[in-house]
């Protein structure tokens, strides 16, 4: 019997029991739709988390000041004052084979004013490489230069939130704002960055030369910084780069063999790894749940195919009597269940994609539908049809024609 003909017979058998076929396919539809939707949402969430982490900086390694011991009492981390911007410059120049750029950072807080408006915000005192290291461009105007840093000029680049709160719809470029009552010239406005992985508004910020923060805002006599942000060419060199940074800093800080580090080198890999593994675990977990529903759908197909075989025992007997071989009967019923599950799979893919898009729209979740997830789940539905359709079809093919013809 030609394949096309068997296909037609299968389609007709399915069409004859429309309601029953639809309900059977529904099991597969739900299963496939669940798999597609869950994977789309899971992968979307995972990419978003990865994006927000990589948004913190370009291949970032952070160097913090270490703890300080004073007369046996150990002070907390970050108390050491030995980490300086010069350390950063030396890292950039001496480890340039690994390091792309270094940006020192001094954190502060300040009340800022423009005309009648005022706003409290955090201040980042940084170097000119800030835009490279944080992967964060200036939206309007320009960033300050090396010269501004060297002479500690009172210039500032503001975040979008600060711009809105101080200037409203006015153009901030070239205006003078007062930071702790001292005049600062606005050079530029940063591009919008949004909230970070922790949900903090990254646009609520004032950025100025670190030298200015130290001299003007802090009146500090030390030249230490709160952090050095080191941007690597590639994360593949992470271990080697960290080791070189550590040895360079130990040498520069003249730490003897028995002395502990007075700094702390950290990177983002642990955060990235844990986020990736959490999201992967979620996807796998939800995928397993969805697959179980697919198996349940498959059992539904098997059930209905067994009923179908029993119902059509006479037809099987007749087909055998007029010359159908066991394999013809096997293929006929197998194809019926495959068609059923594939049609269910197609509708399920459509429902899953649609459902994921709707949920993503309503909940403002990021959705990532990959071709591979569609291809895999559709293939899976076909396999479910073959797997669960085989036993009923095999049973039909083993029937004895005489018994079938006598069956009432």
């Amino acid at each position, binding site marked *: 019997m030609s394949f096309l003909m068997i296909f037609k017979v299968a389609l007709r058998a399915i069409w004859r029991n429309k309601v029953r076929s639809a309900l059977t396919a529904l099991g597969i539809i739900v299963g496939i739709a669940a798999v597609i939707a869950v994977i789309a949402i899971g992968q979307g969430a995972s990419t978003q988390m990865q994006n927000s982490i990589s948004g913190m900086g370009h291949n970032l390694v952070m160097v913090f000041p270490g703890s300080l011991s004073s007369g046996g009492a150990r002070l907390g981390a970050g108390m050491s004052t030995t980490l300086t911007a010069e350390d950063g410059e030396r890292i950039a120049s001496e480890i340039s084979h690994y390091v792309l750029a270094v940006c020192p950072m001094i954190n502060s807080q300040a009340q800022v004013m423009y005309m009648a408006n005022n706003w409290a915000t955090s201040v980042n005192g940084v170097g000119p490489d800030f835009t490279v290291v944080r992967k964060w461009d200036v939206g309007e105007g320009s960033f300050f230069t090396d010269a501004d840093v060297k002479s500690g000029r009172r210039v500032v680049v503001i975040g979008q939130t600060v711009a809105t709160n101080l200037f409203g719809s006015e153009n901030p470029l070239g205006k003078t704002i007062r930071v702790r009552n001292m005049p600062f010239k606005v050079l530029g406005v940063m591009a919008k960055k949004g909230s970070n992985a922790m949900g903090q508004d990254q646009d609520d910020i004032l950025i100025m030369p670190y030298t200015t923060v130290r001299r003007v805002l802090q009146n500090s006599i030390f030249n230490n910084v709160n952090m050095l942000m080191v941007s690597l060419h590639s994360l593949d060199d992470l271990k080697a780069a960290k080791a070189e940074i550590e040895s360079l800093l130990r040498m520069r800080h003249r730490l003897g063999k028995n002395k502990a580090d007075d700094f702390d080198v950290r990177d983002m890999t642990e955060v990235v790894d844990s986020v990736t593994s959490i999201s992967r675990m979620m996807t796998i977990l939800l995928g397993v749940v969805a697959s179980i529903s697919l198996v349940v759908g498959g059992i539904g197909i098997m059930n209905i195919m067994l009923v179908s075989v029993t119902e059509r025992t006479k037809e099987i*007997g007749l087909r055998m*009597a007029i010359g*159908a*071989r*066991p394999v013809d009967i096997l293929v006929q019923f197998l194809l019926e269940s495959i068609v059923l599950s594939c049609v269910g799979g197609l509708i399920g893919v459509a429902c899953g994609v649609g459902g994921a898009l709707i949920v993503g729209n309503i909940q403002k979740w990021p959705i990532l539908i990959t071709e591979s997830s569609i291809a895999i789940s559709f293939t899976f539905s076909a396999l479910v049809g073959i797997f669960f359709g085989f036993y009923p079809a095999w049973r039909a093919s083993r029937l004895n024609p005489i018994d079938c013809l006598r069956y009432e």
Partner: protein
Amino acid sequence: MLIEIKEMYKTYHVGESTVNALNGVSLQIDYGEFVAIMGHSGSGKSTLLNILGCLDTPSSGSYLLDGKEVAGMNRNELAAIRNEKLGFVFQNFNLLPRTSAIENVELPSFYGKKVSNAERRERAIELLTKVGLGGRLWHTPAQLSGGQQQRVAIARALMNRPSVILADEPTGNLDTKASIEIVEFLRSLNDEGITVVMVTHEDDIAAHAKRTIVVCDGKVVQ
């Protein structure tokens, strides 16, 4: 000889006891014969017809069909024999429900040798016209009377140009008028040279056959 059966036994095991449905049957049917097999119920005539129709295999003995030994064949070989050489007519017609007459008639040609769609359709129309249903090609079994359904079944049996038509109580479910029509139609087919083997328990139906074989207790009596 078309059919040559020698010393055929068929034993069924029902629990502990064994039933000898065929007890050493030998018979020969030549090309162009019209044979009626008679016998009361339980005589073994149905078993004999099933074996003749390659639906069942004998426990022992030989069955030459068209000169070929059939007794030891496997299921696929038997299916091919049924498809090419045998045409079945059943007591309860066994047409596919909700399927048109013409598609029912075409059914045997989908198995076995490849036939083009046009050729198949042409032959099915020709056969249905021959059995007097040329105007009802697209009627489903539910829209046809018992006699008409049986004629569709006969057309189906003829589809693959079989060597022999095997009819199992073809008039069992029909009224007297339709029964006579059917058996006379079988007779007219036989007149065209087609071999017909028919099982029946009605004497007046068997009377249309050219030869009658009586089976009793698994043996050919006459």
